[in-house]
């Protein structure tokens, strides 16, 4: 998708908007102007919502070019269907959903949402169902300088999750979508969303554990545990058996 600049830059690059929420009257006015095809209204919507939409796209699609293309597609898709917008939600909420959809379409095209097993990223248990390895507490929250490093570690760990699980974690825990919305966007059931979210959190915990343990020297736990088939949790076995 082309991103050739066509008009002079009118403002500096904008950051995520922290503007106060629009009133109902503002929203009605904005939608009416969009439906009339007012260029200034389109520009206002792009400037007000673009940064947030791009942040969402960057979280879901790790590739910058893909993220920008998805945002452009989302705006075009939204403006094409603005005549049908009935004001059931805020424009920003509507755009958020369209952006997530555009991102998921891209992932589907790339077949990055194919099922991948989480084996090796879930906790291991003895055949009797008890913990086999010591569970250590985690260090207290680090200083602000270390905080940046920690956040980078967490983001890198999230990116290591299989796509199938990473997306659910992002939509539910980070984008704060509810289970029903997530299930609808992912074309699956609410039960499946809940299971994937729990497993994604468990896997992320396993990935972070070596970096955050209070007593790293005593850790006998590798960065990713690979339990023997006997010691896999019931959930892990169910995942494997179901092909998830």
């Amino acid at each position, binding site marked *: *998708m*082309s*991103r*050739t*600049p*066509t*008009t002079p*830059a009118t403002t500096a*690059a904008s*950051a*995520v908007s922290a503007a106060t929420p629009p009133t109902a009257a503002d929203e009605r006015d904005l939608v009416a102007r969009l439906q009339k095809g007012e*260029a200034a209204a*389109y*520009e206002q919507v*792009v*400037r007000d919502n*673009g*940064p947030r939409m*791009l*942040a969402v796209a960057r*979280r879901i699609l790790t590739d910058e070019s893909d993220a920008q293309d998805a*945002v*452009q597609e989302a*705006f*075009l898709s939204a*403006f094409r269907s603005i005549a049908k917008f009935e004001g059931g939600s805020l424009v920003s909420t509507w755009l958020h959903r369209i952006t997530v959809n555009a991102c998921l379409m891209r*992932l*589907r095209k790339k077949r990055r*949402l*194919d099922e991948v097993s989480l084996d090796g990223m879930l906790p291991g*248990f003895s055949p009797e*169902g008890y*913990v086999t390895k010591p*569970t*250590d*507490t*985690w260090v207290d929250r680090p200083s602000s300088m270390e905080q940046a490093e920690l*956040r*980078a570690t*967490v983001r890198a760990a*999230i990116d290591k999750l299989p796509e199938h699980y990473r*997306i659910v974690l*992002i939509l539910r825990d*980070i984008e704060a979508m509810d289970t029903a919305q997530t299930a609808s966007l992912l*074309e*699956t*059931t609410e039960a*499946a969303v809940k*299971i994937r*979210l729990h497993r994604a*959190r468990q896997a*992320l*915990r396993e990935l972070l554990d070596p970096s955050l343990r209070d007593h790293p020297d005593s850790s006998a736990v590798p960065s990713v545990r690979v339990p023997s088939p006997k010691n896999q*949790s*019931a*959930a892990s076995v*169910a*995942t494997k058996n*179901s092909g*998830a």
Partner: protein
Amino acid sequence: MSRGSPDPQPPQLTADMLARLKSGDKLCCRDFSDFLMAYLDGELGCDVACRFDQHLAKCPPCKTYVETYRATVDLAKESCCPKANPQLGKMPQELVNAILHAVTSEKKCE
């Protein structure tokens, strides 16, 4: 999740395990781990939740697991929020221009 890909199918497993828990069978760490999210979300019945509470009170590894599980969720939220990543929401001016240009072009074609 994606079109054509199978969903995980633990409902049967879940039903079996819940039935087992309700029947009074001993709760193990694996049960606790598998049903942790439902427990934290208050989705287990009172009787089962009480048995989870009892297990938690006498199982330090599971207690630590719950704490680190919760910390994982908090860390994921904090690490990905725009406040922690000011760069995440920076929108290049050329992208704004490209979107507005594409919109204008579409309007002209209508």
